[in-house]
């Protein structure tokens, strides 16, 4: 234990800290991507570090939850592999410093542009160990990629923002890093035209691994693989997209880091919102939003928006197919999209049973 918060070095120490806790805890990994209000004592996971198991031949990784993302990515890259879901780095857009940890990545279900092809973080997550609000260690899933033994609490923990327990260990299925990649660019499209072009590309057999639209900059598609295959698919896509405009082909995939990290919205005053929507609804929603800036990822299925401070974007949009997360902002607007009715009751019931003393969230009180 040192520094500002409690920093257990082992899972059993973590369990002990939680058992002895007497009030709200804020769980912190690297402190780079949390979006919920902090309260009470800080419980840091950065003492729980280390790769437990890495088998490149089985595309499997098991790490302790506080292990820095950068270290894991370097370890995997040395074997020509990576986490499939393209972990975003939100430090610039959220104004944070520090080193992202794998536990935080999982708690946020942090997924980048490759979401459209390789799935979200939760889709690559194959096992977890976590400590509940009673200080009980629970394991679920494991280190194999096909596993339907019992309930899938692995998925439940992904994107739970620490509300059900503190992750101590996370396991992933990996993918090889492709030999090369290319970026296709269309210029001058409106949001509506862009989503139509992106849908056409994603509905083709040419295995698009990124599909984004940055107003004023261009509409972008990424393909990855062996060199000959990338060249072939780039050419096929160029023809396939001809009805949507002229396609330039850029070598490489360098520009995707900025899309992944929401860089177009970084360093600007205002609130940052992230909406998961039906792709074809995106242009209409954007038109009603009144955003100061926006861009689209996931073929239009993800809207990033910069709003005037304090805007309640959910109230402005009303009901739509999807949900809105306030990533950064001032005022009383909740970060997570509120659930209603039976779903809200189910969520409250789960929080009550995994965290009966309300250590991990304020929501319990309201429920």
């Amino acid at each position, binding site marked *: 234990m040192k520094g500002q918060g409690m920093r257990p070095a082992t899972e059993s120490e973590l369990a002990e800290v939680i058992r002895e806790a007497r009030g709200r805890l804020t769980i912190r990994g690297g402190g780079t991507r949390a979006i919920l209000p902090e309260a009470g004592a800080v419980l840091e996971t950065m003492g729980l570090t280390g790769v437990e198991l890495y088998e490149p031949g089985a595309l499997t990784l098991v790490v302790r939850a506080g292990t820095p993302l950068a270290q894991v990515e370097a370890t995997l890259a040395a074997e020509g592999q990576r986490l499939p879901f393209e972990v975003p780095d939100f430090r610039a857009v959220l104004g944070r410093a520090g080193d992202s940890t794998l536990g935080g990545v999982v708690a946020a279900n942090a997924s980048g542009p490759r979401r459209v092809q390789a799935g979200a973080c939760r889709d690559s997550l194959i096992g977890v160990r976590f400590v509940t609000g009673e200080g009980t260690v629970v394991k679920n899933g494991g280190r194999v990629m096909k596993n339907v033994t019992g309930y899938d609490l692995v998925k439940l923990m992904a994107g739970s923002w620490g509300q059900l327990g503190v992750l101590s260990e996370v396991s992933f299925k990996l*993918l090889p890093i492709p030999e090369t990649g290319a970026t296709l660019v269309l210029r001058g499209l409106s949001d509506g035209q862009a989503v139509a072009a992106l849908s056409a590309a994603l509905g083709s057999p040419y295995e698009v691994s990124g599909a984004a639209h940055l107003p004023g900059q261009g509409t972008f598609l990424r393909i990855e693989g062996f060199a000959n295959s990338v060249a072939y698919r780039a050419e096929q896509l160029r023809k396939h997209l001809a009805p949507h405009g002229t396609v330039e082909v850029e070598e490489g995939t360098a520009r995707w880091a900025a899309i992944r990290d929401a860089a177009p919205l970084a360093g600007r005053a205002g609130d940052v919102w992230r909406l998961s929507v039906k792709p074809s609804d995106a242009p209409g929603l954007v038109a009603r939003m009144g955003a100061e800036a926006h861009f689209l990822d996931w073929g239009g299925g993800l809207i990033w928006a910069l709003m005037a401070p304090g805007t309640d974007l959910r109230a402005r949009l009303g009901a739509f197919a999807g*949900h809105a997360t306030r990533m950064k902002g001032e005022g009383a607007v909740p970060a997570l999209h509120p659930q209603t009715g039976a779903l809200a009751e189910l969520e409250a019931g789960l929080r009550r049973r995994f965290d009966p003393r309300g250590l991990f969230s304020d929501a319990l009180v309201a429920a």
Partner: protein
Amino acid sequence: MEMPKPNQMVLSAKARIVARLRDVLPADSVIEDEAETRAYECDALTAYRCPPLAAVLPRTTEEVAAVLRICHEEGVPVVPRGSGTSLAGGALPTADAVILGVARMNAVLETDYDNRFVHVQTGRTNLSVTGAVEADGFFYAPDPSSQLACAIAGNIAMNSGGAHCLKYGVTTNNLLGVTMVLMDGRVVQVGGPFMDAAGLDLLGVICGSEGQLGVVTEAWLRILPKPEGARPVLMGFDSNEVAGACVADIIKAGVLPVAIEFMDRPCIEATEAFAKAGYPMCEALLIIEVEGSPAEIDEQLGVIKSIALRHNPVELREAADEDQAKRIWLGRKSAFGAMGQINDYMCLDGTIPVSSLPYVLRRIGEMSRDFGLDVANVFHAGDGNMHPLILFDANKPGDLEKCEAFGAEILKLCVEVGGCLTGEHGVGIEKRDLMTVQFAPDDLEAQLRVKDVFDPKWLLNPAKVFPLHVTASRRAA
């Protein structure tokens, strides 16, 4: 296989319960005659049978909700059923249970190619989901081998996989949203035609919950554009170790085949005798399939073949045309049928870390001699999902019990090497009592609490997944 004693109160109230069900359903949707309920006495795990109290076949979500509301009030257990193809006994009823079959709910509600999803009622069969979109160049990726018959409802309940999940994932990775009826009759929508449902990932825990959290009546499924083409290559090796090393090297080389299937010698011999696919007689055989344009396929197969050659294969056979491709798959696809010709068999479903393959196969061979029962291995080698087939004689007293004991030992071995009891079939009743091998009491308690939230009275498929002694107090409450 022990099942809970039926609730006498429910049995004696049958007339009233059936009458109430008839009040909310059309006449042809309620089955209570003893001769007719026999059709619902088991699923594909046919060794265990029990006719239900009644079976209902609703046509709409509202009818499902009405049935569940009545059963909730009357304290009647409900066993949801898709097409009844579970190999794990997931749809096995008890005498006091109502079978809720979704087979009549098989409509395609919406097909949306721009947003790449299809919205279906869950009684629709897996293959007919693809059937609804393939003319337009799309498909639904999970492809369990029962896909001609199995329903999406059961696929969601068991989180079904298939041969191509190395590339495309299993059901949970292709499920965008569901409409589900809770045991008290309330209808919820979780997720929808967009990525990542709001809030806690309830969709993730619903998928694979074996019908214990709710009855899923509609689903939004992700559909994918069909690849331009696919081609398999077959290779034979003179040991399981070498075949296993070859698989690891292919994966490390950065190729991502859509399927890597493995068969051992007993399996090769049986399928050859039955299907005559022209397989080489060797210790281990791999079928590896890649996708793409003809040139892309050539490139990937080039990498795969060069790796295989480093491992001195006794056979390396590429499909020159569609016909040869079919012949390569013929034996693999007939493997279960071939076994059925020879004997009764039990098909297991454990998953192991791929690196443990040679050790696990050696141990299975040793156990086979100890138990005096033959076993053949078919294996999704890319993802570690094993399907050992234990051969036995159902007419020989004691053979089924011996077979089950052998199967349990194999599954314990899977857990011991870091794997799990079931990769795609589900726990059902079949592996229920082995759950304590894989999970500590606290691990199970966390899962039970999820069910407590969704189904506080423990009426939905209550005798499955968890050992009965673990759930006894909850079921009795």
